[in-house]
């Protein structure tokens, strides 16, 4: 496929613009994409690129994945691709197969390591919960800075415990 703008170089960047729910697809070469993004500057948020990113899946898979529907809210994967928004929390389980790689592309990871709610966890894989060592270490550093050594010692012991547990896995 050739670039939509210069019609010379092969298109390697695929953009999907959504303006007032009207979707417009652009296939650009790297040079034209750079010009275009400079022109759009800040009006163009990452979320707008999403639908486009979802399309990075091989085209022949499309027929299969657009029809998948969330059993809780009835949003289809095609709906998501159109509006760039999911329908409810359950969509994440319903579209897990497609969302896991998408999340990885957006964030560089699809594994949450932060905090969790106190109540009503919808546990998907019990026992797989990871404790974030980075968080604990930062927490300990700050306890030391404010000279709360009791808390720092508690965190140090927790870090020890967690890292030996993770080593054993």
């Amino acid at each position: 496929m050739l670039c939509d703008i210069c019609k010379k170089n092969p298109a390697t960047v695929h953009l999907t613009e959504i303006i007032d729910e009207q979707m417009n697809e652009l296939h650009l070469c790297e040079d034209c994409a750079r010009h275009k993004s400079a022109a759009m500057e800040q009006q163009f948020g990452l979320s707008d690129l999403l639908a486009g990113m979802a399309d990075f899946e091989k085209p022949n898979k499309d027929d299969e994945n657009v029809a998948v529907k969330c059993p809780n809210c009835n949003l289809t994967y095609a709906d998501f691709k159109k509006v760039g928004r999911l329908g409810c929390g359950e969509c994440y389980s319903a579209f897990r197969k497609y969302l896991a790689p998408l999340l990885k592309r957006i964030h560089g990871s699809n594994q949450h390591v932060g905090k969790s709610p106190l109540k009503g966890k919808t546990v998907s894989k019990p026992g797989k919960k990871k404790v974030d060592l980075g968080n604990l270490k930062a927490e300990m550093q700050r306890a030391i800075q404010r000279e709360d050594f009791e808390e720092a010692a508690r965190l140090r012991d927790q870090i020890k415990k967690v890292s030996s547990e993770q080593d054993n896995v």
Partner: protein
Amino acid sequence: MKINDLLNHTSQWLKGTGPNSDIVISSRIRLARNLNKYPFPHWASKAQLEEILEKISEAMFKIDMLKSSTLFKLADLDAIDKQFLVERHLMSIEHSQKTDYKAVLVDDEEIIAVMINEEDHLRIQLMQSGFNLFEARDIINRLDDALSGLLDYAYLDDFGYLTACPTNTGTGMRGSVMLHLPALVMSRQIERVLAAIAKLSFTTRGLYGEGTQASGNFFQISNQVSLGHGEDEIIENINGLIRQIIEQEAQARQILLSKNKEVLEDRINRSLGILKSARIITSQETIELLSMVRLGSDLGMIKDIDRRTINELFIITQPAHLQKLENKKLSSDERDLKRAQLIRKKLNLL
């Protein structure tokens, strides 16, 4: 609290206090949260939106930290009131549109603002004056814990907090810092700085968040990635980045002072002169001139006007604030007159 009570009140984040407040206006953290099973706002029916709003407000009224807060239902507010809340950074522009079953909860000090039924069911925001992300983090964490004890959040162990847009999934957290970078702009280094920020997966926005242009040398910088890193790690990363930008701005200010002092003094005092004597002034011109006056105050060139007065002027000269102060609708031309009058009054009295 009534909405008009906010008018005679300075938001905590505008006080011009806190670490590095010569360069950092405010630090903000927001968390995106949703209720389990309920469709996200854009996909929910009116009845569901009403139920969500009901459920969340009920929970919020039980929380001690929110005792001195007021819930504003957007359907009850007129256009000026809504814009007024946007100008005070208590809600987004997006939230002020299509207002069915939307609300915003604001505490007395305007430190906490919770939007209900924006893009997500809950957008919890915490604002602090100056460079103060860690304190913001501590407070918002306590509030989030309290809410999560009462509300059943949409959450999966592997994906974290589930949000309408996958760009917020994971921690659902965005930390952002509002910076005033006039010296980097004047010395034409800002493009280089902004390009570096983008490379590190941080975003730069203007004064009013998503989709707004940078003006008056103000830049809002926030993290792009919300999944795969813990909350503390994300905050540490923004903190480290902002620290470097602060250093660069401080350096650029020193270089301007040593190499172009007269030019700088001229520009700053001319700006003050215009503000003190103009009879008609637009909000854009006001922001640009106030930016120079703020720099003058930060550098000790202007001694009789403090940072807080300048910060306040940025907000009260905005269109909805002017109209609320005058207690009537004003056309754009009328506002330009009233704005000049208000600025003269505030600056010449000092």
